[in-house]
């Protein structure tokens, strides 16, 4: 709106942001983790993204001012707003919404027009999940949007939560001849054969370019294994090495990995596997303004991670000379809806695909008085709202809500619609649960999840955030090891009793359970009754070892 346009009077001219001069002879466009956000939204980056061990203080574990300083971004600029949480509400009102496939399509077309015949467009996955319409169409709305957007190659993670059969159906019918679905690390669980094509070699502007796919290695652990019972995943970096050697032997002059490892795993993989020019990664939703350069026995590898929620498009121009990558230029472009006119064809498609659900999506459940967001290692206000709803509606002692990194942001005064609630909860295993767990079991769950986040070896992490908790307070010592991180847990002021059973509300169980009322119905019930919600400070455990960490700002 007006605010958005006015913003650029004394700043960069809007057009400048997207005028990226072509360089070299091959261009890789990369987006990832759109989580089915077809229309523009707000999306607040985290203020807590702590790196431990060797990852401390290095990208992507930088937030706020530490991030601006590291990447030399001017405070208060549109880029500062794009890449950090700083002054979020004020800046969001000023610069407007981000992402949306119609605006993204305009940007993709603009870049492709400026680089005719030399682009490959890569989508890192987590594309078919994250909205009500994606869930209700079993990913179909996003598959068709990807095709219209011109995606050439993809890999996956949440896609698998529609089940093996649905994934196979889409890959074999919808994507055939248009989008390559690659994964070098998904195998038949018994016989070990690859389920998907591991790589493709495409001749781009007379340069043979190999793209190797890497799906999310821990899909059967982080998500229900019963959805994909016959498939085995894993990092499989020895097989990755084999694939790299194979494509080099076939003459590839550029070797790129389209990864859904999460950035810490990408960085470690880059240090171990030889011969990869660039890893274009996702999963951890890190929006990193510049590539990380990793040295290995074969030379060096660039690692790029391109955020989430259709908020960014990464542009990697490569100068390929004498059979290898001689130089590069990189730009991560935030997609500001006010600065990019919506593409007509994509707008028409989005309107058509949403039309049957319009009234359901538009139901106003309540109004929020404060900012509602999700990202952060421990909690967000939208998660706190879900926790508050679970405690109230389910009458539980304790509530757990998973540390997902997708979900959109709402500004103070915004109506919370059913669509917004689904943006936080739309998964295929959303049944709200009530379990009776002992204090000991609760402690084990917290320790396990903390280890998935703060193990010093990224291959033992899972790339999400800490489970959000309500009704329970604890201290978390970030630098401890498994079993020792969770300290002094209390419930209603009393120490968590290892032998006592507590009533625990939650959702998103990865175990096969009897389907029941989905969590969005529980939260919607709470919101309809409340009419106006005011979420105070989200509960964050007392942290030990976090102060001074460049990934921690409060």
């Amino acid at each position, binding site marked *: 709106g007006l605010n958005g346009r006015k913003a650029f009077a004394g700043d960069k001219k809007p057009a400048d942001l997207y005028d990226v001069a072509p360089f070299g002879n091959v261009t890789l466009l990369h987006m990832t983790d759109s989580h089915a956000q077809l229309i523009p939204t707000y999306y607040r980056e985290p203020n807590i993204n702590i790196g431990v061990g060797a990852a401390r203080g290095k990208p992507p574990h930088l937030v706020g001012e530490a991030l601006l300083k590291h990447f030399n971004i001017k405070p208060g600029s549109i880029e500062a707003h794009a890449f950090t949480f700083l002054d979020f509400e004020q800046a969001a009102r000023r610069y407007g919404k981000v992402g949306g496939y119609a605006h993204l399509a305009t940007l993709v077309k603009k870049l492709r027009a400026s680089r005719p015949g030399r682009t490959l467009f890569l989508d890192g996955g987590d594309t078919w999940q994250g909205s009500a319409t994606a869930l209700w169409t079993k990913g179909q709305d996003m598959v068709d949007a990807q095709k219209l957007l011109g995606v050439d190659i993809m890999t996956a993670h949440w896609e698998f939560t529609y089940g093996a059969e649905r994934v196979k159906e889409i890959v074999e019918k919808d994507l055939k001849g248009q989008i390559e679905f690659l994964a070098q690390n998904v195998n038949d669980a018994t016989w070990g054969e690859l389920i998907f094509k591991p790589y493709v070699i495409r001749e781009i502007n007379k340069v043979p370019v190999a793209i190797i796919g890497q799906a999310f290695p821990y899909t059967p*652990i982080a998500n229900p294994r019963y959805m994909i019972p016959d498939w085995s995943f*894993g990092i499989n970096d020895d097989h990755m090495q084999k694939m790299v050697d194979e494509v080099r032997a076939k003459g590839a002059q550029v070797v790129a990995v389209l990864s859904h490892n999460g950035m810490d795993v990408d960085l470690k993989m880059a240090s171990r596997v030889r011969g990869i020019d660039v890893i274009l990664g996702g999963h951890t939703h890190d929006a990193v303004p510049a590539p990380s350069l990793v040295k290995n026995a074969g030379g060096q590898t660039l690692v790029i991670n391109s955020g989430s929620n259709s908020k960014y498009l990464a542009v990697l121009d490569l100068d390929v000379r004498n059979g290898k990558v001689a130089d590069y230029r990189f730009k991560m472009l935030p997609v500001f809806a006010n600065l990019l006119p919506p593409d007509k064809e994509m707008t028409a498609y989005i309107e058509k695909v949403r039309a049957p659900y319009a009234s359901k999506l538009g139901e106003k459940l309540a109004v929020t008085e404060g900012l509602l967001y999700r990202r952060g290692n421990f909690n967000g206000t939208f998660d706190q709202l879900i926790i508050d709803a679970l405690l109230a509606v389910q009458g539980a002692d304790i509530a757990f809500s*998973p540390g997902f990194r997708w979900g959109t942001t709402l500004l103070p005064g915004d109506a919370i619609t059913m669509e917004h609630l689904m943006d936080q909860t739309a998964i295929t295993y959303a049944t709200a649960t009530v379990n009776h767990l002992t204090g000991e079991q609760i402690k084990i769950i917290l320790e396990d*999840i903390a280890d998935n986040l703060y193990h010093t*070896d990224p291959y033992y992490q899972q790339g999400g955030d800490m489970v959000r908790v309500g009704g329970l307070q604890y201290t978390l010592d970030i630098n401890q090891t498994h079993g020792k991180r969770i300290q002094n847990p209390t419930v209603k002021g009393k120490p968590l009793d290892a032998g006592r059973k507590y009533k625990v509300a939650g959702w*998103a169980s*990865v175990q096969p359970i009897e389907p029941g009322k989905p969590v969005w119905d529980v939260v919607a019930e709470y919101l309809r009754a409340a009419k106006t919600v005011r979420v105070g400070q989200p509960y964050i455990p007392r942290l030990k070892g976090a102060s001074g960490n460049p990934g921690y700002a409060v």
Partner: protein
Amino acid sequence: ALAAEWPKDAFAAKQLDEAIRAVFGPGAPSPSTAVKLRVPTQAENSAQVQIQVLAEMPNVEAIAVFVEKNPSPLVAHASFSGAEGYFSARMKMGQTSDVVAVVKAGGKLYSAKQNVKVTVGGCGG
């Protein structure tokens, strides 16, 4: 060669050291990069953890696989009389543990280990 009797004591041993001794006799194995142990860093299913052991040294006589924190660490033991120094299986793990492969080659013992995490899932980006 005639197959030896099933080593009851080795499978009953409760401690890793004890189990290794029961299989191979006295002497501690030396860690070796020639023992390629392939196990996941995190188990997808703790009842079926895939393990592969490739012994790259010459004259491999036997390979044994142990899960340190299982109630009885020995999982399996293979002796070779013509096959290459390689063994793969799927195994059960009770909890997060080091997985240890011990190789006997040229009368000497070599080993490799890796931690395999058994964890509750349910988080994600």
